[in-house]
């Protein structure tokens, strides 16, 4: 029982100790690469993008206790909003930063629109509604071909710029630092929410909705905020990831598997803990986008992995790995690698 007396109480800092350590380690990666070229800061940018999605999803699942199974839809909304507003084949061409901000706002609005009619429902119904939404957003993007280019995806998308610095595919390190800065900013802001009235309302609704209601907290409003924040951050992450590959990719890329990847990030890392989410992103996306492809390449080079056999391509074990991660975590370590709220102050 950790007891703190009133005298030692300090308001929560900008970042927790664990988060500071983690970000410090992440900052070191490109610095080490200056000495030894490991080639990992380029793919780790994807981890950073997914970490932002994970932080958004964590607000919904970890803080508010709502199971959200369609977060990929909001990544798609963010990516497409960003693409339509910035891509040179469209008239708007707002540029990177306004496009990013617009993607965030449009994502949050979409989250609120989905939530407004359905948030008074029982928890599991929300899971189904978000799941269905995740599916139909793909359909909508495919069907509205004149606007979204259908299954082609939209490209090229602008790379970021920052006070005279421009970013290109041959400068992954500065690009990495920029995304890390955005991730840190998101972490600080969400942490502010976590330690405020808004966060307290989220936790209260998660812990005991009826008791919270008897304390005059309106669960629908509270859940709506969580859903909008989660959707906004997912859209931001989606836009950042799209900018990274300079394309939205086809709508089918934002499928259920991506939603579950994001869920795995939250659950494996530590549900309700932002440090955990970033660790989870490192583990899951690291496995998904770095380890498995490298392993596949190595197998190919060794002449073992043939394209004809389904069993020898590491990529084909993704579902199994995600599934096992979820089942085993729930069974043996339901609080994740980094348990929530042990890292608070």
């Amino acid at each position, binding site marked *: 029982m950790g007891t703190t007396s009133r005298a030692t109480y300090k308001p929560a800092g900008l970042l927790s100790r664990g988060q500071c350590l983690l970000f410090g380690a992440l900052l070191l990666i490109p610095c080490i690469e200056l000495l030894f070229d490991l080639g990992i800061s380029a793919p780790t940018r994807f981890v950073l993008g997914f970490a932002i999605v994970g932080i958004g999803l964590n607000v919904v699942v970890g803080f508010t206790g709502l199971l959200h199974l369609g977060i990929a839809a909001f990544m798609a909304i963010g990516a497409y909003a960003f693409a339509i507003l910035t891509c040179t084949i469209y008239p708007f061409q707002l540029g990177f930063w306004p496009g990013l901000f617009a993607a965030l706002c449009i994502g949050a609005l979409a989250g609120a629109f989905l939530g407004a009619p359905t948030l008074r429902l029982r928890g599991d119904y929300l899971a189904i509604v978000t799941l269905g939404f995740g599916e139909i957003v793909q359909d909508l993007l495919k069907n509205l071909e004149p606007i979204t280019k259908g299954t082609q995806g939209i490209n090229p998308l602008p790379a970021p710029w920052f006070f005279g610095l421009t970013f290109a595919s041959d400068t992954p390190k500065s690009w990495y630092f920029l995304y890390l800065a955005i991730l840190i900013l998101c972490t600080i802001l969400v942490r502010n929410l976590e330690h405020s009235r808004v966060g*307290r309302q989220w936790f209260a609704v998660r812990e005991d909705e009826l008791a919270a209601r008897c304390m005059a907290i309106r669960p629908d409003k509270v859940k709506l905020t969580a859903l909008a924040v989660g959707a906004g951050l997912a859209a931001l992450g989606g836009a950042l990831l799209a900018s990274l590959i300079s394309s939205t990719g086809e709508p089918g890329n934002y499928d259920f598997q991506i939603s579950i990847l994001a869920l795995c990030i939250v659950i494996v890392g530590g549900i309700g803990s932002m440090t955990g989410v970033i660790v989870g992103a490192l583990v899951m996306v690291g496995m998904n986008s770095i380890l498995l492809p490298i392993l596949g390449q190595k197998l190919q080079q060794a002449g073992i992995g043939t394209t004809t056999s389904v069993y020898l391509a590491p990529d084909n074990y993704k579902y199994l790995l995600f599934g096992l991660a979820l089942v085993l975590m729930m069974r043996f370590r339901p609080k994740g690698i980094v348990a929530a709220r042990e890292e608070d102050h």
Partner: protein
Amino acid sequence: MSATPIIEVDSVSMRFGGLVAVSDVSLTVDGGSITAVIGPNGAGKTTLFNAITGVYDPSAGRVLIAGRETIVPLDARAWRSIFLYGIASAFLAAVFLNVEEIWLSAVTENYVYLKPFPWLEGVGDAGALVIAHGGWAALVGGVVGAAGRWAIWSRTRRTPEIVAESGVARTFQNIRLFPELSLAENVMVGMDRRMHAGFFASLFRLPNAALERQKAREEATRLIEFVGLGSSVDVRARNLPYGHQRRLEIARALASRPAVVLLDEPAAGMNPTETVELMELIRRIQGTGTTVVLIEHHMRVVMGISEKIAVLDHGEKIAQGTPTQIRNDPKCIEAYLGKEELG
């Protein structure tokens, strides 16, 4: 004491399927008093609390808090909300069903290569197109949206949050704290009703939100001391011993500065010393001007502190009066001790 009634239960019945848990119970609680509701197990006491606090909707009858029925009226505000939802979904339907045409006329046709996009004209053309072609879609969408809002509104006219908003706080028979939150945070959730920090103030940690939080924390610490749990405000609630959890629940209920607080078996599971402390606490709560209603089995507590007692049995109120009257009421004795065998 000639106080004004704070709670008026007016012939309330609660039916669950065929089971009548509360049948035609009327009860008046005077402001500033301590009232006890007693009765054997299954008499409908907790159900009555649930009906008062909006957890259940009474099958019949009504509950007045401070003379007002705690039900969302079909007033201008409700109509405005229905209207806004109707407009919003009409707009969405009209835009969505014509989205390709809107794109064509508002975006594609307004775009001149290498020139900045004329936003005003685009929006204007889009608006014109929605007005010209969106009629049916808007009508259907608007009706569905308004009807949907109305359906949700009519289902949630009397909910716990609305009753709590009018100044009623409660505790639960089987303690319902927020187990993963600290003591201070549990109490601060109770204070939420009186807090103002909005989303953006919280997001950017603006000074007013930070100040409010600081003050709330200090007040929470005071309240935790008030119920006798000082010095451990940062412990998680689930780590508290049972008796302390009950007191924390009382602190959380008091945090909303309610006009009336409903305590559901506050002394359950407490030892004699704790029980005496609890009685003392309840008197102090009354001393702050808060009305107390409690369900209790400990007769010592009930007889010791309550000014008025209502007795429920099998869902019906069989007696009401001062402790002395109840102690001598044959019906109450019968309910508790069983009918005296004749002959």
